[in-house]
Every structure is written in structure tokens, then in C-alpha cells.
């Protein structure tokens, strides 16, 4: 019951199209087809020919023969049925039933034949069905395309919205900056004017404020030049600023723009820098914390960077040296400013200029934050060094996902203004918070849940929160970012004294501030982020991993194909590697091809084809 081949021949015996459905060599099929015209007699009233090995069942169609080659035990009734179907199909696809017409539509015929006979077996189809199959009109594809198109449109909309948002926030920022700048009470020439306006707005009635706002919003261009002359200074925000921005935001809100106030951390930050230098000498020690925590515990990176800066208000107080005291933490490496005398520092822990006759730069000329004297850095893999650990447990139950988050703070620090931001899957409404230690708020635009605790001290070293959202993938809740500040430092750096070098008078009065802030404190699902800037490092790590683990037993064909494809398109040697940690599946790399390969080849730990 097997059709070996379906063919169309011209009356003169030329093979125009032939489709074979079982394995046979070219010589064989050509031989069979070449023999056919000799075998088909004239004047016979039947349309089959049997030879020693095969049976030909044919049908003349105008100047053509439509021919099925079958084995001899094939079921003639079925073959005739097939032949009949094919003979109806041939005129459907051929322009004209002769050699030319057939040759031109050879491929269409082959496609049609394929629909009727599958691996030599007849399919249960009708002419209409075959035509439908060959046209390949698919509702599903149309649907898919529509969905795709709507997605694209949606994304475009989002893009537009984002773009306008960015524009707005730029304007917004300009204003904010301006506000900050204006309110800065430094001795610039232009500031006097601005100061006036601020003071007016500050002291004026509500009406005054609104007009002010109006003037800003309606004529931003008029003010542009002034802002251009004065480069914005992020750190120069002063008290009036928050008020100002709030006003803007309020007005924007009034205009219908949905804006989420997100001021707390900034307030915290600004508070650190904010206090005006009232003492003639101010020494600020600040540590910035860059921490990446892994989702399932452990530190991925931990980095503390500290600076000690000096701000001197008056020229006469500039000839000084600073005596400091460090906590003796061996993990911390100090580096002095190149102008500092290293000897002095290493021997006596005194910071002084190499040239004792030179004064330290003073306030207005120097940086607003003062002059950097000392930098230090600390890295660690010790989990106990982490001031605040967070544990997030999303668990799906029924139609909901319960997420419980808990924090635990180490006793080293008292943390202030702690804000834990948890990204949520896109939600229409605020999540349902069952329980919280502290406060929470939901930012629907960015879809972030913020959990804030004003102060973490010994009374609340640990806390938790639980909320419920519609079902979502657990990875949607990451990365969780944390902000906080503290007043004690890892380095325990203290300024003991200020030694005046000139005048021999009493050392000028000095104030000392210490501040620990978070720069980047995240809890991430995976170890690394994939980014272009990371690539060399990742490569190195991957190599190291390969050296260590020998995890790759083979490069699977698809991965190999992928690598080749990449190489083909980029013209360079490329590598793809997937890092697998623990029982997790590999993190999906950035682009689509890699994503495909990842899902296909989760087996492979690391794949690498470099150079």
C-alpha cells in the first residue's frame, strides 16, 4: 500500500515533475520513469502497466501523463482513488496542461502532491482541503500577528509616554536644580536675584507662589539662559528646594499628570550634606556602601568607599593639619590625596600638606563638599559585615502570591530612613499588605512597593512585612533595592584634633560629621547582571569556572550553531556562556538568540567558544 512516486510526464516521455515518497536512488526512479513510455501501449482500455517489480498506474491528461508508481502488491482501488484526486489537482495548479505549464508550476505541484501522499500513504483529503493546505492561510498566524502588532503598538505607546515623561522630568529637574541653585546661599553674583525671588516666594502668600509657578511653567524658555550659565549642582540642594519641588509636583498633579512623590531618600541624603557649614572648619567623613546580595543568602559583592573631606570657611584658618584616629580595621586601605604628606600620615596619623607653607583651599573656591583629604576602601565577603540583610519569600498559593519580606540588621549600626523597594509585577491596584513593621507605600507608575522604616535600632533589629499580589513569577520581585543612612562608619575614623601651623593660636573650632549612605544596595536574584561593561570580567570568570569545574562535557549542536551564527553575523569570534548556580536554571542572557539557547540547553553549565 505504498506509492513510490507521483510523476507528471509529457506524452513524449519527458519527466516533468516527479515526487518520490520512499527512499530510492535517482538512477532507479529515472530508469522506472524512462521505461514507462515504452510500456504504455496504445489502444488499451486500461491505465495500468505492470512490470516485474513495479506497477504504473497512470492517467492521460491532455498532453501529459499523470503517473503513480507503486509496488505490485499495492491496493489498486486505493491507488486509483489517489490518482483520481491528483488528476483533479493537476489542472488546478497548472496554467496549461502541457510541458510548459507543468514546468512553470512544478513546485506548486510538488507541494500539492505532498499534501495528498504522506510517506507513501494516502491522506484523507479532498481537493478543497489540499488547496487550503497549500494556501497556508492561518487564522492563528493572523491572530498572532495582530497580537504582535498590538504589542508593538503598546510598546510604542509606552515609549512615547516614557519619552514625554523623561522630557517632563527633565524640565522638572531643571526647575528643581534651579530651585536648589537659587536657594543655595553661596556667594555667587546671580544668586542675589534668585535669593530675592525665593525669599519672596517663601514669605509671600499662596497667591504669590502660584504666580511664581505659573511664570516658571509658562515661560521656561525665558529662564533658560540663566540656568545655562549656572551648571546644575546636585548636591547643592537646600531646604527651600523640597518645598519648591513639592509645589511643582502638586501643580503637575493638578494638571493631571500622575507623579509619585519619592522624596524620602533624597531628603535623607540631602540632610547629610545639608547642614550649613557654620563652623570655620568642617570635616566630613562619608562612606558609600555598594552591596549586592544574593537572593538565597550570601554576598555577591560588598564594597565600602569612604572619603574624608575638609571644608574651611576662612582663609586665615587654612594653615592647619588634621590629626585623625582610625578604628584599626585591617581590611581598610587608606589613600591620601597626592598633595598630602604620606610620611606624616603613616607615622603620626596626621594629615597635612607636603608643603607646610601652603594653606588648604578654602570654602568658596573649593568644592562645596570640601577638599578630599583621604580615601579608603573596604571589600569583604564576610556576611556579618552586611548592615542589613533582607529575605524575600514569594510563595504562590491558589490564585495569589504571598510575599513575605523580612529584614535583619546587624547591631553595628543604627540605620535611619531605611527604604526597601520591592518591584512588583504590573498591578492595577496597590497590593494587599497584610502586615508591616513600619510604613509602606505603593508607586503604581514604577510598580514598586516601598517599605520604609524611619529608624532601625536595637528596638527593632528585625522586622517583616507580608503582602499579597496576583500570581506572579517569583523573579518578578527582584531586584530589591535598599536605601538607608547611618552615622557610624566602618572605618571608625575620627578627627582627634586640628593642629594650627601658623599663628600658634588655639586651634580653630571644628565640627566633624560622619555619614554612611547607600549608593547601591541590592538584593538580586542571580549573581551577575549581564551587561556589556561586564563582559570582559564575566568572560574571565567563566574561563575560571571552566578551569575549575570542567563542567562542559560537550558543546551541544544548537549551542554550536548559535555560536557560529553569532560569529557569522558579527564577523568575530564570540562566546556564549551560561552560568548556572546551585539548582537554578541559567540566567537568561540579554538577547533573544541567547535566550533561545538557554532554554534549549539548560543542561550545559558553561559554554564557551572564545578565540
Amino acid at each position, binding site marked *: 500500500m505504498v506509492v513510490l512516486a507521483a510523476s507528471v510526464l509529457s506524452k513524449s516521455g519527458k*519527466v*516533468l*515533475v*516527479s*515526487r518520490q515518497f*520512499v*527512499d*530510492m*536512488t*535517482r*538512477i*532507479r*526512479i*529515472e*530508469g*522506472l*520513469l*524512462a*521505461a514507462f513510455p*515504452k*510500456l504504455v501501449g496504445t489502444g*488499451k*482500455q*486500461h*491505465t*495500468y502497466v505492470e512490470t516485474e*517489480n513495479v506497477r504504473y498506474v497512470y492517467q492521460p491528461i491532455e498532453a501529459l501523463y499523470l503517473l503513480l*508508481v*507503486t*509496488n*505490485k*502488491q499495492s491496493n*489498486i*482501488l*486505493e491507488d*486509483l482513488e489517489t490518482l483520481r484526486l491528483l488528476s483533479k489537482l493537476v489542472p488546478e495548479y497548472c496554467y496549461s496542461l502541457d510541458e510548459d505549464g507543468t*514546468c512553470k508550476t*512544478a*513546485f506548486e505541484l510538488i507541494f500539492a502532491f505532498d499534501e495528498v501522499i*504522506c*510517506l507513501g*500513504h494516502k*491522506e*484523507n*483529503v479532498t481537493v478543497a482541503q489540499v488547496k487550503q*493546505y497549500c494556501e*497556508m492561510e*492561518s487564522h*492563528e*498566524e493572523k491572530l*498572532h*500577528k495582530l497580537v504582535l502588532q498590538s504589542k508593538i503598538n503598546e510598546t510604542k505607546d509606552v515609549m512615547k509616554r516614557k519619552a514625554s515623561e523623561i522630557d517632563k522630568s527633565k524640565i522638572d529637574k531643571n526647575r528643581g536644580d534651579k530651585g536648589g541653585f537659587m536657594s543655595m546661599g553661596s556667594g555667587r553674583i546671580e544668586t542675589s536675584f534668585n535669593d530675592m525671588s525665593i525669599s519672596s516666594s517663601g514669605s509671600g502668600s499662596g497667591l504669590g507662589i502660584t504666580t511664581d509657578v505659573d511664570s516658571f511653567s509658562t515661560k521656561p524658555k525665558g529662564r533658560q539662559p540663566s540656568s545655562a550659565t549656572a551648571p546644575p549642582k546636585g548636591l547643592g540642594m537646600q531646604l527651600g528646594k523640597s518645598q519648591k519641588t513639592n509645589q511643582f509636583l502638586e501643580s503637575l498633579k493638578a494638571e493631571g499628570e500622575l507623579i509619585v512623590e519619592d522624596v524620602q531618600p533624597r531628603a535623607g541624603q540631602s540632610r547629610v550634606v545639608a547642614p550649613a557649614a557654620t563652623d570655620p572648619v568642617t570635616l566630613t567623613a562619608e562612606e558609600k556602601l555598594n552591596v549586592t546580595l544574593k537572593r538565597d543568602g550570601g554576598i555577591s559583592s560588598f564594597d565600602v568607599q569612604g572619603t574624608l573631606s575638609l571644608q574651611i570657611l576662612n582663609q586665615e584658618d587654612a594653615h592647619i593639619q588634621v590629626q585623625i584616629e582610625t578604628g584599626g580595621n585591617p581590611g581598610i586601605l587608606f589613600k591620601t590625596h597626592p598633595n598630602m604628606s604620606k610620611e606624616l600620615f603613616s607615622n603620626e596619623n596626621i594629615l597635612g600638606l607636603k608643603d607646610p607653607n601652603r594653606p588648604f583651599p578654602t570654602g568658596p573656591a573649593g568644592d562645596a563638599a570640601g577638599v578630599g583629604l583621604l580615601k579608603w576602601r573596604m571589600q569583604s565577603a564576610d556576611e556579618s559585615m552586611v548592615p542589613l540583610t533582607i529575605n524575600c519569600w514569594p510563595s504562590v498559593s491558589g490564585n495569589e502570591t504571598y510575599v513575605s519580606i523580612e529584614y535583619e540588621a546587624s547591631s553595628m549600626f543604627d540605620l535611619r530612613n531605611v527604604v526597601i523597594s520591592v518591584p512588583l509585577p504590573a498591578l492595577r491596584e496597590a497590593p494587599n499588605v497584610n502586615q508591616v513593621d513600619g510604613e509602606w507605600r505603593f508607586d503604581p507608575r514604577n510598580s514598586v512597593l516601598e517599605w520604609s522604616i524611619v529608624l532601625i535600632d536595637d528596638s527593632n533589629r528585625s522586622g517583616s512585612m507580608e503582602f499579597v499580589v496576583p500570581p506572579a513569577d517569583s523573579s518578578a520581585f527582584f531586584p530589591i533595592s535598599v536605601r538607608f543612612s547611618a552615622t557610624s562608619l566602618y572605618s571608625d575614623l575620627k578627627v582627634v584634633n586640628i593642629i594650627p601651623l601658623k599663628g600658634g593660636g588655639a586651634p580653630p573650632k571644628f565640627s566633624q560629621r560622619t555619614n554612611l549612605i547607600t549608593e547601591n544596595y541590592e538584593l538580586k536574584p542571580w549573581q551577575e547582571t549581564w551587561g556589556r561593561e561586564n563582559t570582559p570580567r564575566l568572560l574571565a570568570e567563566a574561563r575560571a569556572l571552566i578551569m575549575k569545574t570542567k563542567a562542559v562535557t560537550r558543546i*551541544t*549542536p*544548537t549551542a554550536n550553531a548559535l555560536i*557560529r*551564527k553569532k560569529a*557569522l553575523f558579527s564577523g568575530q569570534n564570540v562566546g556564549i556562556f551560561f552560568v548556572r548556580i546551585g539548582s537554578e536554571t541559567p540566567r537568561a542572557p540579554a538577547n533573544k538568540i541567547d535566550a*533561545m539557547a538557554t532554554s*534549549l540547553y539548560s543542561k550545559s553549565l558553561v559554554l564557551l567558544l572564545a578565540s
Partner: protein
Amino acid sequence: MEKSCTLLIHFDKGTPAIANEIKEALEGNDVAAKIDAMKKAIMLLLNGETLPQLFITIVRYVLPSEDHTVQKLLLLYLEIIEKTDTKGRVLPEMILICQNLRNNLQHPNEYIRGVTLRFLCRLNETEIIEPLIPSVLQNLEHRHQFIRRNAILAVMSIYKLPQGEQLLVDAPDMIEKVLSTEQDPSAKRNAFLMLFTCAQDRAINYLLTHVDRVSDWGELLQMVVLELIRKVCRTNRAEKGKYIKIIISLLNAPSTAVIYECASTLVSLSSAPTAIRAAANTYCQLLLSQSDNNVKLIVLDRLNELKSSHRDIMVDLIMDVLRSLSSPNLDIRRKTLDIVLELITPRNINEVVLMLKKEVVKTQSGELEKNGEYRQMLIQAIHSCAIKFPEVASTVVHLLMDFLGDSNVASAIDVVVFVREIIETNPKLRVSIITRLLDTFYQIRAARVCSCALWIIGEYCLSLSEVESGIATIKQCLGELPFYSVSEEGEGTDASKKTPQANSITVSSRRPAILADGTYATQSAASETAFSAPTVVQGSLASGNLRSLLLTGDFFLGAVVACTLTKLVLRLQEVQPSKVEVNKATTQALLIIVSMLQLGQSSVLPHPIDNDSNDRIVLCIRLLCNTGDDIRKIWLQSCRQSFVKMLSEKQLRETEELKAKAQVSHAQPDDLIDFYHLKSRKGMSQLELEDEVQDDLKRATGEFVNDTDDANKLNRILQLTGFSDPVYAEAYVTVHHYDIVLDITVINRTKETLQNLCLELATMGDLKLVERPQNYTLAPESSKQIKANIKVSSTETGVIFGNIVYETSNVHERTVVVLNDIHIDIMDYISPAVCTDAAFRTMWAEFEWENKVAVNTVIQDEKEFLEHIIKSTNMKCLTPVSALDDECGFLAANLYAKSVFGEDALVNLSVEKQADGKLSGYIRIRSKTQGIALSLGDKITLKQKGGN
């Protein structure tokens, strides 16, 4: 193993596509141009180009295309490209396509998925398939049936791959699950097919659990069920019982294809009379119900097979089979009669003959064009019935004798031959037949029928009254004497009027003919033409048929008339007591004979009487004038005896043939036993080897080649270059049916590396080179086997020429070594065949090409020479051995052969021994095509010397 070919498309060489153009079009964005370029690329590939540079272009620019046609063409392209290197490993770049295939398998368009799955069925490379398996399996549960059915097939073909069982460990499980839920008939069939081929137990299990519903299943599925049953029962005969019931239930299926399949399954399963009867009944039913000639013929073939294996059962069905005579198709009728004739028994003979008689009568009334032929067939059938069962002869012979005057000469001859045989074998009927023959003699129109009837009259008119009425009948038919007289003006003008007519007829159709013994006779075919043209010579009704025939110049008939008269007169002398009456009759006969001679010598007829007839007629005159006992004995007895001898020999030959046939169908005691384990198998599993269906398929696809004699191989080695040439080459030629394979061994005899060595072949005649030659590099003193395939399309002597071209490192020009020609022998294509004497004669008359070769041999004995020719031309001698028996100094024989392409080759050999002991004569070869006549002639000229 040679690559399989899935696709052939006629390629017009007139418009060659340049690879660069294709590449450009492929790189462009125009979809129509892309489609066109893909088509061209595929055509080029099919035409033997390799286009390796195109692959990357296609990967880069065609793979991402969204157009459906482009994707389908891409699949075709992937189907035909070489995916492995020379060592059978998958080319590394092939994995580039995996991604695309995978995307296609997840394409939202169900048809793209479907065609991709179908493409996977044709893919053999595990490395490519492996990463796609998850996607394939996903498609098993797609809601669109088009995808599901193809997915199942894809799973099946993947599972059938050599490592398939590792790739898809749980495929049978999955498919079984699919099968249980599937609704689409095609998908269901495919799933069952998959289980059937991959996990037969599960298929059986499924079948047995759903045994009650089998009859409700779709036609396609039922077919596979039957196939499964056949296979299971072949391997495990004991389980037949379980399945017979299913088959019986399927016998009532609405689909005729299923019914047909059921019948053949039944036959293959069981030889129990009930089963066979059921199968035969089903066939008969199909035979009557189906209107398609093809079906009828094939069903008749099946019945024929049944007849040879289960004759006793078929005998009962003879009347059912006979009913298919109602079909107007001659082939069907012929086949039916063939079957029926072998089934007749004493019990049913009467019924059969009655039916045949009815059919014969029907042919008289109908106006159908094929009636004549059909009647001839029927007459032959009745003839053989009557010979087998002489008792029926009496019932038919009279009926048949009505057809002696039939305008269809062939059937009239058949009738007269039949009558001749019956009158000898059935003495009881003799008197009535003779009376009847004499009564109807005047109706006979054909000269050959006449002469035969005259012979019968001459031999079998025994009694006085018979002899007398015999002479009277002949006289009456000859009409008034003389035939021609110069003095009588009226007749003279009459005759001269007739001549031009007769003249034109005879001249136009004058042909050489061969007599039954193979000798050449210059016979005028006017008799036949005269009948085909109904304008019988005027006055024929009045003057009788013999006269008109004689007046056309048929003197052979004249001689027969003369002989018959002589015989009758001689017999009259024995039975007639009255001398006067005898003398009267003698003189009258003499008068007739003499007038015939006179007519022969007259100038009225275009041809004077030929010497042969003249001699015979003169002999008759002498005999009548002067009778001796010896002569009388010869004339009155020996003739009859030799006829009896001929009949008995014919019968002997028939029985011998029957015996031979019977012996062939059974195994000889010393036959070889085929152990399947020892059979050449080429990667087939044992089960497949035992599977005759598979064998059938294998044979059809050409995978199963009958092992030829290995010893003969070495005879066929041809040296192509000299021993002192830098390259030595020899070829071993294998001739299959439609192709010639040259295995050429090339040896580098130098101490240098030969680069770009290329075997260029060119052909003459109907040969075509299949592949274009490749370049090789040959290390010093190393050798290389090169295979070249050549296609043959007709039986002609072909010549293959060739060169070997190569470069060496120090000489930059290409060096050419010319090879010996390879002659392809016609003997490889023709095989001995048999045809009837009549068919031989018609072909001999029809065929246009004749090659006449004069005999020139050292062989002295005629028979030895004949045997030599038979042996060297591989033909069959049609002339019976008895006809060649005696030593008479001359020999004539007909040889016949058929080529694999279905062409006929006819040879007539006529030799005579000269006085000096040498043989002389001619060998004539006739065929429809020039090729055979020429090459066979060459062959004979070459071989007839008697040496090698």
C-alpha cells in the same frame, strides 16, 4: 549506499541560471524574486550542481524570510542538499538550520508547522533532529489535526532512525496516548501506523481492545489494521484465529479498497477452503461491481493467482468469473477466458460452453468494432474446450462452422483449424461435419480458409456420395470452364476488365511471407486484401468463390484445388464400382486442372503461374493419367498420417509444457534452501526479511538486487589503457536493467602525484551519463575506484568513450590519456521470449527494419549452426524441435527475443547445405527500431564464424 532522490523536475538547459544572479536575488528583499531564485537554485541542485557557496547566503537571507512559499522552498532545498561529508558525518554548518526549523515548528501558522514536520520525516541526520525533538513532541498535542498527523509521522520516522530509540525513548507510550484520544481519521491512522512499525505489541493490544469497533473505523485505519494482521500472522502463525474474525467483519466494509485488501489478507493468512472461498467471492463481487477496467484486470490477476494455488475452490466460481465477459474490454475478456479455460472440469464444461456459445451468438448481432476479435477469442476458447472434452465438440462444431465464411479471416481460420482437428479426433462427427462443410463451402471467402477446407474435403470424403458431392461442390464453386479463353471475346473483355482491379490489389499488397516451417514463400497476400476490400470480383456469386479467388491470381489455391480433385478422384476409383463414372470424373478433373494451367500461362493475369504451383498442378495431371499404387498410398494415406502425427505431437508438446509448468511451481528435491539468515540483507532487520510485502517494496525501489553470479564478474573486466601509460585504468561493467555501472579502477603508475585527475566519459547511442565527473588527486602509485552511472533508454549498441585528464606539479598543461572504447552489448538487454506463430507472423509483416545477413560460417551442420546462433544471440527458437529433426540438407527456423524495454527482436534463419558441404543462406533480423536490427546483425556477423 547511494543518496536517495526525492524530487525530479524537468530542467531546461537553455536558460541556465548563474549562481551569482541567484545569490543577488536571494539577498534582495523582493519576495517574488526570492521565490524564483530558490526555485532556480533547487533546479540547479537537481541538475547535479553543488553550489556550496549558496548555503551561507540562504542561511543569512532566506532563513529569516516570513513568506510561506519561501519557507516551503527552503525545506525542499534542505531536503536535497548534501548534508553529510564523504565520511558520513553531518557537515558542521548544518546545525545552523536547526534554529530555523525549530522556529518553524513553533510557528503560529499551522501549515508551516505541518510541512516542517513532514520535512523531518525525510531527514536522516540525527544531529540535526535531536535538538528539535522537544518541539516535535509539543506538536503532538496541537489542536490542529493537520499538525498532529504530521507530527505523528515525524515521530515515527525519527523513531525509525538508527538511534531513534534513544532519541525518543517513550515515543510508543506517547503515541499510544495520542491514539487513544485522537479523533481525526488521518492522524489516527498515522498513530496506528507508528505503533505498527515501531511497537507492534502495542498496536496489537490496541487493536484487540477495540476489536468491536474496528468496523466503524475510518477506511485508512482499516487498511493499516489489515496490514498489521498480515504481518503479525506471518511472524506468528498460531495467532491467526484471533484476527480472522476482524477480517470477516471488515469484509462488509463500505469501502471497496478495504474489501479488496481483506480478500488479499484472507488469502495470505489461510488456505482453509472457507477463507479462500470468501476471498474469491469477494473478488468476484468486486469484479462485477467495479466499472474500472484497471480494477477488473488486477482482480482477475488475483483470481488467477488463486486459481493456481486453490484450483478446486475456484472451479466452483467459474460461472461468476465468466460473468465478467460482459465487459466490452478485450483484455478483460481475454484474461477471463484464460482463467476459465484452466478451470473447466467435466462437471461444468457444459455450462461453460453454453455460455460461450451464447456469447458467440451475441457477437453476430452486435455492431461493436471489436466483435471480430472477440469472436476469434471465443472460438479459440471453445476450440480448447472441445479438445479437452471431445464430447462437447458435437454441440459446438456446427455452430462454429457458421463462421467459416466470416469476414474476419483470423476467426475463420481458427474455425477451420478447429474443424480440421475435430474431424480427425472425433470420428463420430466426421460425416456430419463433412456434409455441413460441403453445404457451407460456397460461403468461404478467404483463400487460406479455402485451402484448409479443401484439404479437409480431400481427406475426409470417404463414402461414394461424399466424394461425389465433394467433386460437385468444387466444380460448382469453380464455375464454368474455361477460366479464360482468347477466342471468346465476351470473356476476354470480362477478364480484361477484371485485371486492372486484381492487378492493383495484388501489387499493392505483395509481401514476402514465411511458411509454417519458416521457409520463405513468395506469396501474394491478395486473398486477404480481397476480403478486406468487400468488392468481390464481379460475377462471383454466380460463378462461385473459388473462381474469383483463382482469377485474382492465387495459384497456390489453384494447386490445392488440383490436389483435392486428384485425391477425390483417386478415392472415387476405390469406392465407385462403375468405371465409366470414374473416368468421367477423371476427365472432368483433368479439364479443370488444365484450364487452371492455361489461366496461369495467359497474359490476362499480371503474374504468370509460379513454378511451385505449376509443378504441383502438373504432378496432379500425371497422377490422374497414370496412377501407381505407391503414389496412391502416399496421397491417400501418408498425408493423413502426417497430420495425425502433427496433432499428436501438438498434444504431446502441450502435455509436456503442462508437466514442465507443474514442475516449475514446486520445489525440486535438490533445490537450494534459502536461509533468511544467510541472505544478503543490507541493513534490514530479520522481520523485514521475512516480510514479503517489504520485499515487494524493496524490489520496487530497487534496493533488492538479485545477486548475480560473482564468477561472471571477472569476465567482464575491460582494460582501458595500456600497461605503460602513466595511468592504468580498467573497468568492470555491470549492466542492470536501465543502467550501466562502470567500476573503474585507476592506478597511478608514476612516482608523481597526479592532480585534478578527471575521468571524462562521453557516450554514443541511447546512453546518458548520470553524474558529472569529479576531480581526484592521486598519490604516487596509489589507486582509486571511480564509479560512473550510465542510463540506458533503449536496446542499442552503445559505445562509451573516455579520457583521463590530469595535471602534475611540474608540467602545467593537462595531460590526456585516451581510453579504449567500452562497447555495451545488446545481449545484456534481450532475453529469450515466446510468442505464438501467428503473432510472430504479424510482427514480421509489420516491422519496418530488416537486416539481412548472409550466412558465412565454417560450421558444416545446419543444426549445429542454429544452436550456435541461438546461443550467441540469446534468443529462443520458436520452431518446434520436431520440425528440425530430419536430415534434409536445409533448415529454417524462427527465433524470438524481447528486450528489457519491451521491444521485440525477430530472427529468421534459412540455411541450405551446398554440394560442397558448406552452408549458405540468410539470416534476417526484423525489429521495430533500427537499433536492434543493426546491433543484432552486427552481433550475428561477428559471432557466426563459429569461433567465439
